[in-house]
């Protein structure tokens, strides 16, 4: 693991925004800074490699999610395995239509997940309401009306390849996260 200049602020350029951990590491010398930057990299790498997703299959996309997790597409390669409970999940994969009756439950599931948590809206229904956008009276027009979404995957339903691409995009987002050091 090499030092990545994109992570953290170089010493001496922190300015007024430098927070306490950064100052502490500056006091230890330049090597300490390198260590802080790498800790981010290490933690993010660990997180992206074990993305446990909540098996939250409400509709059609759930079947593609199942098939993506099974023999041919094998989502386990990315460290993504399904969990039955939100308490053990890092990722809420909203796979399917969310109705108004279901809306409160989605919020509660999201709130039950431990930090850091991510959301992927899989399929048109979770993105915008999909084919039910215009004429349905009880479909929530996009899950981002309820909870924050990190990655949107279009498709009705998206193919497993698209889902895998979405998960890889989320892994990129996770790698950019700053856990330690100065906050920009």
């Amino acid at each position, binding site marked *: 693991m090499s030092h990545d200049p994109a992570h953290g602020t170089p010493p001496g350029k922190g300015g007024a925004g430098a927070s306490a951990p950064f100052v502490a590491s500056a006091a230890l010398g330049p090597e300490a800074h390198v260590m802080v930057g790498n800790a981010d990299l290490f933690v993010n790498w660990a997180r992206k490699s074990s993305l446990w997703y909540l098996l939250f299959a409400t509709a059609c996309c759930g079947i593609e999610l199942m098939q993506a997790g099974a023999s041919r597409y094998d989502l386990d390669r990315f460290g993504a395995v399904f969990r039955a409970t939100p308490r053990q999940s890092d990722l809420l994969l909203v796979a399917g239509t969310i109705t*108004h*009756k279901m*809306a409160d439950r989605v919020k509660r599931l999201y709130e039950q997940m431990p930090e850091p948590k991510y959301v992927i809206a899989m399929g048109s229904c979770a993105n915008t309401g999909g084919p039910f956008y215009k004429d349905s009276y*009880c479909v*929530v*027009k996009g899950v981002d*009306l*309820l909870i924050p979404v990190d990655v949107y995957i279009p498709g009705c339903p998206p193919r497993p390849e698209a889902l895998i691409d979405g998960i890889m995009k989320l892994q990129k987002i996770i790698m950019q996260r700053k856990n330690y050091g100065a906050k920009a």
Partner: protein
Amino acid sequence: MEAQAIFDTLKGKFGDAVVELQGEGFSPAFVVVAPAAVKEVSRFLKEDPGLSFDVLMCLSGVDYKEKFAVAYHLHSLKRRHAIGMKAFLPRETPSLPTVDDVWPGANFHEREAFDLFGIVFEGSKDLRRILLPEDWEGHPLRKDYKYPDFYHGIKV
């Protein structure tokens, strides 16, 4: 048994409570009965050995704009014949007796008609909304239903 023969049998037994036979353009044909007589006619349709309609295939509410209707699709596994039964209801007070003690499978269908049309089935053992949340306003499958703007603060 043909639809006309079933209609004649019912007419002979119940008289004016059996109104008409909707045959042309209807598949299967419908026997239109007065709403108050629905339960007696149903029981007869099920228990008469010549008819023995033992399965209620489908129960649907219909909004014909000027009036409501409940349509029953019946099928007999013993006799292998089918018929429809229909009862027209006034728009203001749509209510009729339940048939869930004749065919126990009617309960979910009746709850659905209650939920989406507001049709009341008197004497039902369990008449609650089934598909929509309890606090939903209005009955969506009515022709004059206006979509709400918000539900619990979320845009509909």
